[in-house]
């Protein structure tokens, strides 16, 4: 009996703990870590620490020349700056440059640097550093690590040859140091979007002496010498690949100095863990897991901004009968995007018909969905157009060919989206579209393979995130003649409207080089409306960035590109709480 008592006393605490955990976990009630403070009085210096959770085990790279993902770029934006950068409204503003001139019919850009620029370690920064940085980003050693230097710097004279090693440097040809405060960039083609491309971190200035001293591992030494390598509003105090990055203000920064004393950039592998850590007051900002979005939207600390990312259905013009405009429009009108977003994406995203996303230059608030409808579509009109299209194509519903919608198998939500869309086509138009899933990598490959061909892709779910906020990135890069992303074969097909498509492609080329901003906007808006009517893309939703931010973090404002411009950090502080 005595031993029986003992075992009970041994087991009881375990059991109680377990049930306690289960009960408390299942229980509802008030959400902890909630907002409530509206106090804007600045807290003590010791509390001026902003704990920023990001969702990855580590940033992919701290090297501006290599990074292409948002998480890395957010860190880079803290410690590095470029000649020009985007402000909160995504306008291009001189940054390291005090001003710039465009001459030679748009083929020459002359940048006049601010006086007395310094890196965070106090060493001088001048035009030679700008030239070194651009040449370095284009070098095969750096470009081969990401393969994207030409996306942003490809217009510079000799840039393509530099990436393959055919020329040893672009300094002196593409990038010329006129004097320590003046750098001249020569282009091979005049465009209106070169400055936009230059706002990307690829050309953010890096400190040559640090790069050369530490080689490939130079970013692991950004915290050495009291913080070195960059020139941004912050410098690196500590960089650990597993526990994150600590930033402190850079006293040598040329702009307005931050009020925060420290920013901790903290890696979270899982969105749910980051969210829970926010609720437990371990971090000041968090992503929101999809299942929590509905609940989170009603919280006062919910925060969201338009993000320059659009998800759409691609339709191959070389696949019959997808070359018929009435059938394309019918398929677009049969979809109720609002229902799709609710059914598949927890209502977290914004139903959308646009190609150029909300939040950037080029967005057209007056744009109409295909056939003059809205995001809900128009079932009646869809059926009318479909009947007409079938007749024109010499088909009936029974003889309608087997068409397959392909999607990337990386999330169950994408599968739900595809299933919802197929169901809508079935119920509205009476046709069966098959679905198949492939990996995201295979999707990228097949998109490239589909260019100029009737397969492997017929219809597919895809997304595009802006390289830089210029309409060219959404229009000419996607639908231009021979454009690398034109897997839809727009302007390269046997449809009856191909002549109009080719004409539109010519208008795209003209818009790309227009210097009058207002006229350019008007032209792109017209082109976009035509593309939407052609169902060149069948856009479904724009993905906003959604997050919770502690109400005591004052002044934090993300641009639509999800970044905080360098000088905007001066407005951010922690209030008493």
């Amino acid at each position, binding site marked *: 009996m005595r*031993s*029986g008592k003992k*075992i*009970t006393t*041994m*087991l009881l605490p375990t059991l109680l703990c*377990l049930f*306690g*955990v*289960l009960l*408390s*976990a299942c229980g509802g*009630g008030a959400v*902890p*870590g909630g907002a409530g403070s509206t106090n804007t009085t600045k807290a003590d210096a010791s509390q001026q620490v902003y704990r920023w959770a990001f969702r990855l*085990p*580590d940033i*992919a*790279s701290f*090297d501006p020349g*290599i*990074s*292409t993902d948002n998480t890395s770029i957010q860190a880079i934006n803290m410690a590095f700056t470029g000649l020009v950068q985007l402000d909160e409204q995504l306008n291009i503003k001189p940054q390291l440059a005090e001003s710039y001139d465009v001459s030679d019919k748009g083929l020459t850009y002359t940048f006049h640097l601010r006086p007395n620029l310094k890196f965070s370690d106090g060493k001088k920064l001048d035009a030679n550093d700008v030239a070194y940085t651009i040449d370095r980003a284009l070098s*095969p050693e750096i470009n*081969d*690590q*990401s*393969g*994207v230097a*030409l996306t942003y710097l490809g217009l510079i004279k000799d840039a393509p040859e530099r*990436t*393959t090693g055919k020329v040893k440097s672009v300094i002196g040809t593409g990038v010329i140091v006129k004097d320590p405060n003046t750098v001249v960039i020569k282009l091979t083609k005049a465009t209106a979007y070169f400055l936009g491309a230059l706002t990307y971190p690829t050309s953010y200035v890096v400190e040559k002496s640090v790069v050369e001293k530490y080689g*490939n591992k130079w970013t692991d030494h950004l915290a050495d010498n009291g913080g070195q390598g960059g020139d941004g509003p912050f410098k690196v105090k500590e960089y650990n*690949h*597993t*526990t994150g990055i600590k930033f402190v203000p850079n006293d040598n920064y040329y702009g307005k100095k931050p009020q925060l004393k420290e920013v901790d950039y903290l*890696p*979270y*592998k*899982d969105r*749910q*863990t*980051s969210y*829970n*850590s926010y*609720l*437990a*007051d*371990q971090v000041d900002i968090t992503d929101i897991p999809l299942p929590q979005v509905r609940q989170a939207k009603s919280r006062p600390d919910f925060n969201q901004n338009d993000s320059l990312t659009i998800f759409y259905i691609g339709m191959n013009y070389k696949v019959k009968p997808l070359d018929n405009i009435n059938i394309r429009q019918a398929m677009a009108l049969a979809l109720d995007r609002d229902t799709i977003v609710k059914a598949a994406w927890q209502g977290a995203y914004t139903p959308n018909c646009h190609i150029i996303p909300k939040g950037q230059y080029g967005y057209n608030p007056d744009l109409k969905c295909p056939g003059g409808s809205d995001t809900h579509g128009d079932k009646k009109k869809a059926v009318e157009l479909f009947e007409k299209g079938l007749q024109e194509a010499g088909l009936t519903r029974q003889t309608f060919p087997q068409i397959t919608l392909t999607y990337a198998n990386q999330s169950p939500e994408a599968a739900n989206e595809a299933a919802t869309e197929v169901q809508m086509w079935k119920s509205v138009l009476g046709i069966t579209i098959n679905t198949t899933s492939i*990996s*995201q*990598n*295979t999707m*990228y*490959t097949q*998109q*490239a393979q589909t260019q100029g061909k009737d397969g492997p892709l017929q219809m597919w779910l895809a997304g*595009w995130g802006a390289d830089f906020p210029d309409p060219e990135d959404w229009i000419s890069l996607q639908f231009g003649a021979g454009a*690398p*992303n034109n897997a839809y074969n727009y302007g390269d097909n046997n449809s009856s409207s191909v002549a109009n498509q080719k004409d539109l492609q010519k208008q795209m080329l003209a818009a790309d080089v227009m210097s009058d901003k207002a006229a350019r906007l008007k032209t792109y808006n017209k082109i976009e409306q035509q593309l939407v009517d052609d169902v060149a893309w069948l856009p479904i939703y724009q993905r906003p960035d959604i997050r919770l931010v502690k109400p005591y973090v004052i002044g934090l404002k993300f641009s639509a590109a999800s970044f905080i411009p360098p000088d905007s950090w001066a407005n951010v502080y922690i209030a008493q709480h």
Partner: protein
Amino acid sequence: MIQFILKRLIGLLFVVIGVTFITFTMGYFAPDDPIKQLLGQHYTQEAYLQLKHAYHLDLPFFQQYYNFLTGLFRLDFGLSFQSKGRAVWDILKDGVPVSVELGLWALVVQLALGIPLGIYSAIKARTWIDTTNMLVMLIIYALPSFVLATFAQIALVSLDTSIPGLNWPVSNWGTPWHYTWTDIQYKLVPILIYGAAGFAYYARLARTSMLEVLSQDYIRTARAKGLFEKAITFRHAFRNALIPLVTVISVSLGFLVSGAFFIEHVFNIPGIAETTLTSVGASDYPVIQATTVVLAIAVVFGNLLSDILYTVVDPRIKSE
């Protein structure tokens, strides 16, 4: 004994080479391509070929394997694709100690709780104590670790942080191999959760093993001799019951380090287990190969350890 260990170490070399060959071959013929992953939406055929050449992925199979193998002996596992250009060795160097720390502490929890509970159950076999104990163990064993981990974390979030002592962190790991109060706060819950599934398993195993030994003739003889039950249990039965346990524990050592995927994921612990799985998703073959080799080495060492422990537990077993 030294000769035995040396033989085993030579065997280890062949095992590692075999493992590298299999992993490398699987990676080489896998349909996904790390360069495509790297280029993402910027994929073009030209960029693809240029990068493939830059990463030496256009070399013939055996040359790539030779390069990989020679690199391995220099502890150079190549560069990660996912963490652009970061040496795989650096990734291992950061992650392995954390996973080892989590795994070892979990093992301590598992053994310290599981074996005594199992043995006690065996002694009280077929009583209500035994039935209750085993039922509870079965429930704990059946609960997946990610369910326990998620519930534990939500429970921690629900704590009222304004009450002193309840301000308990719900994620992260503290400083590896440091045990200040803050570190312990970070580590305690993940270790207990990771230990939970294992301790139930060991409890059940210890019970079965002990019951088998207790039914042996020599135990009956000992009882007939009039020995105290305590002496029978601990001096005669326990040591023999340990033999199957030693096998299981040693083999599980390797997996203990790499098996904490869910725990590391949910509690945001910067270990290697999750790195292994995320690198599979990202087709980051250099990391997959390196972690597989580390796992293989850990398993082989686990086996070696179990062989050595056999001789300690049961002197009749000779290492030769």
